Structures are given as structure tokens and as C-alpha cells.
């Protein structure tokens, strides 16, 4: 049945890489019904800036263009308990505070090299926050329309199956 295939596919393709709440979120589920934090427009904007450093615009649009922050807000709200939400948004606030301490500007106002420096700093100073933020950003991005159709290649109707053919130069990974 469908669910069994889904389980097998996830177990194999994701190799356990995704945490259970993010996996549920990526499938459009709501698994947490308790009280949630209200996320402000400022926090959402800050998430978008941070996500765009993790997945920047290159030859293809980055996380901000793909609206990854909306995915992050939704999945944190629908799939994580309040305590995890608080830890996560505290981590986000700390990044901004430290940015002000170090460079005298909020994270959003920093030029890219200094944004990169701040994210590198967070990677070691608050590894759990970095990991959660990265997981949400990467998942939100590659399952978005922009991520799936531009960064990756999406075939709505392949029409045929070839099991074993040479990997062409420049061939992107299939989106699904």
C-alpha cells in the first residue's frame, strides 16, 4: 500500500537523515497541537536572511526566493513542542544579538562576508541551533517549487524508465 511504500522510500532515501518532526512537516503533517509561539514579521524576515546564507542564490535562486522561511515557521509551529520552539527562536535571537555586539549591526544589515562569519560562528557556538536551522532550510528549499525544478530536476511525467544509463555531465539530481 501507499503508506508502506512511503515508509520504505523514506527509510532508504533519507537514510534517517531527517528528524521525525521535520520529516512529518515535509509531508504536510501537523503532529503538535499544543500552544505555539507567535512568530513576528521581524523574526520571519531574519529567518529568510539566515536561510539565504545557508542556501544562497547561485546559478539558481536561493532559500529566500523559495520562501524557505515560511516552511520553517510552519514546521516549527506544527511539528515541534513549545520547548523546542523556544530553544530555536532563542537561538535565532542570540545570532542577532551577537551580530550587533560583534559588528554593531543586526544580522540582516550585515554584508555577506560578515553574515558568513556569523553563521560560521554559530556553527560552533550553538551547534544544535545551526543543525536545526540547516535541516529546516535545506528541506524547505529542496521540496519547494524553485528548489525542485531549478536547483534539482523534476520530471512530472517521465513516460519511460531507464534503470541504468551514464550520468551525463551537469546532470542534476532528480527532485523525486
Amino acid at each position, binding site marked *: *500500500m*501507499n*503508506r*508502506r*511504500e512511503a*515508509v*520504505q522510500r523514506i*527509510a*532508504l*532515501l533519507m*537514510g534517517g537523515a*531527517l528528524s521525525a518532526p521535520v520529516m*512529518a512537516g515535509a*509531508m*504536510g*503533517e*501537523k*503532529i503538535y*497541537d499544543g500552544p505555539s509561539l507567535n512568530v513576528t514579521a521581524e523574526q520571519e524576515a531574519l529567518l529568510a536572511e539566515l536561510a539565504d546564507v*545557508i*542556501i*544562497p542564490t*547561485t546559478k539558481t535562486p*536561493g532559500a529566500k526566493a523559495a520562501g524557505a522561511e515560511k516552511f520553517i515557521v*510552519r514546521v516549527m509551529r*506544527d511539528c515541534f513542542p513549545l520547548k523546542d520552539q523556544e530553544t530555536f527562536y532563542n537561538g535565532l535571537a542570540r545570532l542577532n544579538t551577537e551580530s550587533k555586539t560583534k559588528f554593531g549591526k543586526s544580522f540582516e544589515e550585515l554584508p555577506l562576508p560578515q553574515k*558568513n562569519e556569523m553563521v560560521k560562528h554559530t*556553527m560552533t557556538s550553538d551547534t544544535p541551533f545551526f*543543525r536545526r536551522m*540547516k535541516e529546516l532550510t*535545506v*528541506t524547505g528549499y*529542496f*521540496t*519547494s*517549487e524553485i528548489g*525542485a525544478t531549478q*536547483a*534539482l530536476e*523534476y*520530471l*512530472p*511525467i*517521465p*513516460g*519511460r*524508465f*531507464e*534503470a*541504468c*544509463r*551514464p*550520468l*551525463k555531465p551537469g*546532470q*542534476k*539530481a*532528480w*527532485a*523525486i
Partner: protein
Amino acid sequence: MANLNIDAVKDMTYDAIVVGSGVSGGWAAKELTEKGLRVLMLERGKQLDHVTGYENALKAPWQLQYNGKITEEQKATHPKLSRDYPYNEMTEKYWMKDADSLYKENKRFDWFRPNIVGGKSIMWGRQSYRLSDIDFEANAKEGIAVDWPIRYKDIAPWYSYVEKHVGISGEKLGLPQLPDSEFLPPMDMFCVEKEVRKRIEKNFPGRVMTIGRVANLSAAGKAQLGIGRSACQYRNQCALGCPYGAYFSTQSCTLPPAAKTGRLTLRPDSMVTNILYNKETQKATGVRVVDAVTLEERIYNAKIVFVCASALGSTALLLNSTSERFPDGMGNDSGQLGHNLMDHHFRIGASGEWEGDLDKYYYGRRANGIYIPRYRNIGNDKRDYLRGFGYQGRASRESWQRGIAELSFGADFKEEMTTPGHWQMGIGGFGETLPYYENKMYLDKTEKDKWGMPLVVFDADLRENEIKMREDMKNDAAEMLEKSGLKNVKAYDRGSYLGMAIHEMGTARMGRDQKTSVLNGNNQVWGAKNVFVTDGACMTSASCVNPSLTYMALTARAADFAVKELNKKNL
């Protein structure tokens, strides 16, 4: 669907009534109408039109996610369905809400009930395998339960008959434990799978690996094109409903020819609560139906009744069909009705990583995996448990998920994640469960659902034989992958509860003796010879292969028998 006359019939009398419209019910309707009978097909679920009803089938993944509006309701209405699977909005409307699907669990049982015309034939996994004489003879040889009243030779022509209509893609192997079907061309294996196959077959004499045998049209022949089906497009979105009719479902495969006869009346939203019995004639006279929406009650009459309401649904119906003659449920002289409940046990196996073949990729999404047929307790192999298991699995190539755990970010990271990663491969076992009298379902007549059906109570569990088998299922999987050169092989056992495999079987078994079985060798209910049960309920043992193909063959066989008996005025 233009020929279907839905609930516009004043005449309440038909030649035949078919209860249920899934894999078995669809076949019953097709065969009986084609043989000239006027058939009423009753389905508890709602109408689902072929193609136009598959609302999500052509949506891209991002169009299905994050709508949010459904999810809160989903959680509230499907607590059981959502408790152990990533349950999503894509197929939500195909399943019955838990709030409507009331049942009790003395022991945990996951009961997945569809809520649509077509039943589980829409969402099924489509893996299609024949049983063999190793299966049909096992009970008798081992002294387990009762003997099957049929052997492979009795069903073989009917397998061929249904396969030619359905279209099963697969590879001929000539194995005694897994007889070949009438095959369409096999789907191809990934390069990694081909290599693993060679190594398994070299390192483990007696074991083979083949491509899954699947009810998807790898090529559409005349039989299929003629009823509006076309070849598989390799989208692998089957469970949403196929706009190409490329896999077997009631809608794609059995309803069109039944409708074409002009003799089929399909009535959705029709919960059959009782089969009515006349003790003078010793036959059923018809059925009592409760309208699923209006709760209005109706009686329909027919010369024969095919009960194809799913294994557990059919047995619940028989148990509820009490009369002076059958105080404990129709056909229950033996006391076996509701007992010998089986399902496959699974969610156990291993996966590993493959080094190499990084220059190989694929095109399209194969809606199928590989299959390793049973090899335990076959030939000279003897284990400390009975029966055996097969594996389903596949190779795949890592995608962006591999980058989640890395402490890296930025442009280089992003570009790396847009290219394919390493190959990996996993296999998971599907094991046979023995028919235990103690594994049972029964009705709690003190509590009823909204249609007035007493609640089903489940009291069934995996036992010593299955638990011993699972050790082999786990260890063999890891050993085969390791010896095939996969690295970092990890074995897993996620635990298996009955019902989860959605291969529920037994509870109204076939047998040779009215004293120990519910059905005879033609799927006729003992003591009510014009009632036939041809879905999973009839299974005398479970085999380890996916069972739907067997229900199709048994249904076609029973329909043929029933019409011959009708014509001889024996029914």
C-alpha cells in the same frame, strides 16, 4: 462510467449481489455481468470516478504540501491511521475516518479501511505473486489448522485468466515456490541491483533475486488498450489514482467491462449490515443495506450473493448475519468464523551503502522494486520455525538529504547537493503468519457504529513461530547485503503489529469439512450455498507473498462455478 446506473433502479431484485467493490468485488462484478447476470454492486464508501476523481494525481509535490488546512482535521479524525505512518493529505480522502471506523483492540490491530468505490485497489502496492503447492500443501504436511481444499492445479488456469486481463509485469524464473505468471515485459533493474543479484545468486546457492512482479502495464496490450488503459508513465504516484489507468484497480480494469454489459448497477454509500437467510431453502435471499449517508434501510434480493467486503469486513458481515439456523453467524457451524486471523509480518530487514557506479544514473520513477522469493524451509533447508519469508527492496541514489547532518553551508554546499550522491540498497522481509485459532476477531454486540453494525474486537498477535522467523529475516538481510559488497550495512526491526501490512487474511477459511471450516473448495458458505466469500477472509493459510492476485483468481473461479450451478438450477 456512462453505463453505470447508480441508484436509479426501482426493482430491488437482481440475479446477483456483490458486497464490496475492491479487488475481489470488482472481479466478481466483471465475471458475473459478463456471464449474463444482472448484478447489484454495493459499496459502503463514496463514489470515486476513474481519472476525474483522482484530484491529486497530477499535482506536483509542492502543490500538495503545506496547505495546512487539512492537517489539524486529519489529526483529530484519523488518530489511528496517523499513529505509526507518515500519513499525509494526498490520499486522505480515500481512507475511512477513524471516527467512523470504530473498533476495539484487546491487542493492538491496525485496521486500514478504504472509503471509496474501488476500495484498496486504488491504494494497493500492486505486487502480484502466485501461491504454489508448497503453500497449498503446508497445512496438511505440518498438521497446522486444516488442509486447503484446493491445490495449485485448481487455481493455475484462473491465475492465467486474470493475469491476461490485468497485465502483470515480471520475469520468468521457473521456481517451484513462486510459479511464473503470464508476464508483460519485466521492468529493468538499476545497475547496482543487477550486480547485487549476481552476487546473491553466487554466494547463496538456492536464493534468487528478481524484479518485482507488479500490476503495472510495462506495455499495454490489446486487452488493456481496449478498455481505455495505457502504459505506465513511470511517475510512481500510483496510490493517488492513475489518470492513465496503468495499474490494476477496479476503476481501470474490472468496472469498465462490467459496465459495458449494461447489466451492472453500482450503489455507493451502501453499508451492508446483514445477509438475509431462508431456512426452508437453506439459501440467502438478499441483503439488508443501510444508506451510509441518510441511514435509510433497504432490502435487496438476489439469487446469489458474493461477499467481497475485505477479509475483516466480510467476516463481520457474516458474524452479524444471525438467524435461527445460524445463531452464531452465517456459515459458523464450525465455530471457526472470526478465527485464524492472519496478516504478513514485516518492517524488518537491512540496508547499506554501495561504493562505485557513481557514473550511472537512471531516468523515470520505477513504481516497483526487487523481490527475493522465499528460500527458507524449501528443499533441504530446515529451520526451527515453519514456513518462510520473501524480501522486497530496491537500490536508490542519495539526494540532498545526505547533506543535512554536515556542518557546512553556502554556495559550494548548495551546488554539491544538487548532484546525485552515493548508491544505497535496502531489503525488507515479508513473513508468513500461521493460522492460529487463538488469533481472532469477534463482534461486541453491546456497542454499534453509526450504521448499526456491532463493533469488531481484535485479539490477535504474532507468536513464537513468527518471532523466531524474524531473527532470520533480519540476519539474512544483513548477511546478503554484506556479502554482496554493501558497506555500513545496518539491520533494522521496527516492530510489526497485525494489520499493518494490510494483507489481512483468514477468519472465514476454506476447507474440506463443514465441521472445521466456513467455506468449501468453491468459496461457498457451508449451509448457505448461494453465498460466496472470495476475498482475503477465505485464506486457509497466508503464504508469504502478496495476496491480492490470489483473491482475483479465486473470485473468477468461484464466479464461474456459481453461474454454472445457477444454470444447472443448483442454486
